[in-house]
């Protein structure tokens, strides 16, 4: 048993050596709520780590010290039936430790669940779909899978779903919140530096659950404004195709889990395309059930220009 613990320790040490954060704490936080969550995590890690070493240490010590050394089975150990005071002590001490952990959690809690009050929050709606994320910005702009946000500003998320349960999770920007059909959940973050933060859906939502990835792209306030006022519109068709369609049909529409689209003349018929995207067909989910007319137009323009390669040669 001792050997195994040494083995585990070596494995752990190797993990630490290979990276500054080998997965022993949540990733380096970049939002105040994530910072506080990590603080609470560290406190619990301190207590549980100490308890772990103590319990396993005592266990290994006893195993070593009281090993039978070939003594006969009839040779009895000390016939003690208990010890009230000792048992009281190891009941009360965990109670105290748990109280401390509880107090730390409640101390950190306001900084985790409540967004800073004074800030002027940016309200963005996050809608989970099989199998992409859709983001609605205050000015009516929409984006797919990539959420754009300005650095240093509180972003207030309204998290909803139109089909099954999903779970919003960008580890560096805080924990998870489920996107539940028929229910509205709230979440917030305030990114403390520019960059791209990635995460994935954390609640089994169907076949492509593993591919339901999201990115939060944090730029300057000017970057953000440029995106929601112009880029979001011009880029929407591409984002829709790559975020929603390409998951099954491939990045060039070449087919994958779903059929090849590149040569399907449907791509040139906006109303038929809109109907199938809005309602789904057979195995295909109703990916675009909440899409606007503008979105459908953007998709139709994009696929006609960039995906459609002309009807397949006859007989081919």
């Amino acid at each position, binding site marked *: 048993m001792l050997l195994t613990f040494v083995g585990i320790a070596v494995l752990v040490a190797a993990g630490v050596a290979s990276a500054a954060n080998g997965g022993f704490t949540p990733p380096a936080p970049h939002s105040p709520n994530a910072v506080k969550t990590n603080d609470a995590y560290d406190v619990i890690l301190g207590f549980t780590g100490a308890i772990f070493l103590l319990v396993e240490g005592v266990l290994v010590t006893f195993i070593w010290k009281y090993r039978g050394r070939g003594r006969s089975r009839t040779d009895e150990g000390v016939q003690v039936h208990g010890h009230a005071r000792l048992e009281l002590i190891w009941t009360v001490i965990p109670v105290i430790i748990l109280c401390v952990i509880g107090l730390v959690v409640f101390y950190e809690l306001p900084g*985790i669940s409540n967004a800073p009050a004074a800030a002027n929050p940016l309200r963005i709606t996050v809608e989970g779909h099989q199998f992409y994320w859709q983001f609605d910005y205050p000015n009516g702009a929409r984006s797919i899978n990539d959420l754009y946000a300005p650095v240093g500003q509180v972003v207030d998320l309204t998290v909803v779903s139109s089909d099954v349960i999903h779970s919003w999770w960008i580890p560096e920007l805080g924990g998870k919140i489920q996107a539940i059909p028929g229910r509205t959940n709230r979440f917030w973050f305030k990114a403390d530096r520019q960059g791209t933060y*990635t995460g994935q859906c954390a609640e089994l939502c169907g076949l492509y659950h593993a591919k339901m990835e999201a990115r939060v792209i944090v730029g300057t306030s000017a970057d953000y404004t440029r995106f929601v006022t112009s880029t979001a519109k011009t880029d929407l068709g591409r984002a829709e195709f790559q975020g929603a369609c390409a998951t099954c049909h491939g990045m060039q529409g070449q087919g994958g889990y779903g059929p090849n689209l590149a040569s399907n003349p449907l791509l040139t018929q906006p109303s038929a395309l809109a109907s199938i995207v809005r309602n789904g067909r057979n195995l295909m989910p109703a990916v675009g059930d909440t899409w606007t007319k503008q979105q459908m137009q953007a998709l139709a323009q994009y696929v006609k220009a960039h995906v459609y390669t002309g009807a397949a040669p006859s007989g081919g």
Partner: protein
Amino acid sequence: MAARSEAVYPVTWKSGRVARWLVTVDHKRIGIMYIATSLFFFVIGGILAVLMRAQLATPNESILTKNSYDEVMTMHGTTMIFLVIVPIMAGFGNYLVPLMIGARDMAFPRLNALSYWLFLLGGVVLWSSWFATGGTAKAGWWSYPTLSESQFSPGHGQDYWILSIHILTLSSLATAINLVVTIVNMRTRGMSWMRLPLFVWAMLVYGILLLVALPTVSAAVTLLLLDRQAGTHFFIPSHGGSVVLYQHMFWFFGHPEVYIMALPAFGMISEILPIFSRKPIFGYKAVAFSTVGIGFFSMLVWAHHMFTTGLGTGLDSFFMISSMVIAVPTGIKIFNWIATTWGGNLIFDTPMLFALGFLALFTMGGLSGIFLAAFPVDWQVNDSYYVVAHFHYVAFGGVAFAIFGGLHYWWPKMFGRMLDERLGKVSFWLMFVGFNLTFLPQHMLGLLGMARRVYTYSHGGLWEWYNLTSTIGSGVLTIGVAVFVANVWIAHGLRKGVRAGNDPWLADTLEWYTTSPPPEHNFDSVPYVTSARPLRDLRRRLAEQT
């Protein structure tokens, strides 16, 4: 020959080699059938786990398709919970409870047989769903709507799953009633509550928890079935249903279920540790009452599975505190078990190794649970591989190690032959090392951001290393289980196992008073019980007389 046996028992078709198992109402045969069937499901459920690990060994692997991954994942979870751990505990309970309390059989032998056959039927129904249109259920072992509704899970796999859960809950309800009635009414003379073996205490609470928890899961899956088949909308929000209602109903069952699996394992540990320490259990009352305490509090912690649902600070806080409260009686058990080894004459036979392994691993699972109880931290680690690691430390490192300890411990009683000690030890060490290799890195994977129930991932680096380590570990673990199977084969198939006497371990409880295996009527006579260790009392009395 025929004439001679006819004089004692009439030989009918019921005495046939196969038929005597098919028509039996003997708690020992039913117990063995339960255990054997559960072990069979353990092996095939384990094969599913190895398939998943193979698929996740490296990024963008394609051993399984995403479709079959979801099937394998759902079937693995459902099989291990409903067809392995819960019924194998029913099997041990069936076999051991009447023997331990000095009874002739369970209170309702025919009901007992019915439970077993319903369990087998439930297993067959679940596994036949591989042949259903659309394959098996794919919504995970919780089968959360709306994913499990017919719109998102067409085909009949989900319906097979529901039917199987219905059958299995009926089976468990019958077992639960039987156990509770047997334990309350059929204890032998002198066996007061404070002289009850701790495993029997655990089975009593197991029975009560099943009775309380099972009806809600039956109701939940019934409503789901109505949604799928009768056009109702209990869980369809677009028609006024509530998805969160299902989560509450499922976990109101689902958390007691954790302790339904864990308490009998605790009971086994409380039996094994003292015998191989040559000591009494340290603090019998504390261990017995903490079993009852855990049973009670286990019904008040269900929503800690739902912290990411968005229940609000009030509910989250309540369930955090209740979840932390349950750590206290669990801690009491661990400390008392460790104290049981203090000053002992520790004999490291295979059952003891598994019991000590249980202590080492279950402690880890208990401590990682505190992170999950603290709900803001839970928001970060829940639904990631951290949780997968946590519950495998509880359910495999804890419960399954206890089961293997129990199998090695009671094997000579059940079958009259000893398993080979050397192979037993090899099997233990392979399983212990393999288990840690498999599940320790999964904590880190979860913290790195790997969500659970994903069929693949694209990250290299640490993700790949941890996943690869985990997969290699699962291979070592599998070899460990294979060595156990080989051990059984050598002891019985090749008849190499040494004949066990009545009491090969010099144990304390009544099941060791009768022959191994016991006769159909269990005991010719049962000694009057004057303490929690009746067999030790007998041995001492004999020693005084000679």
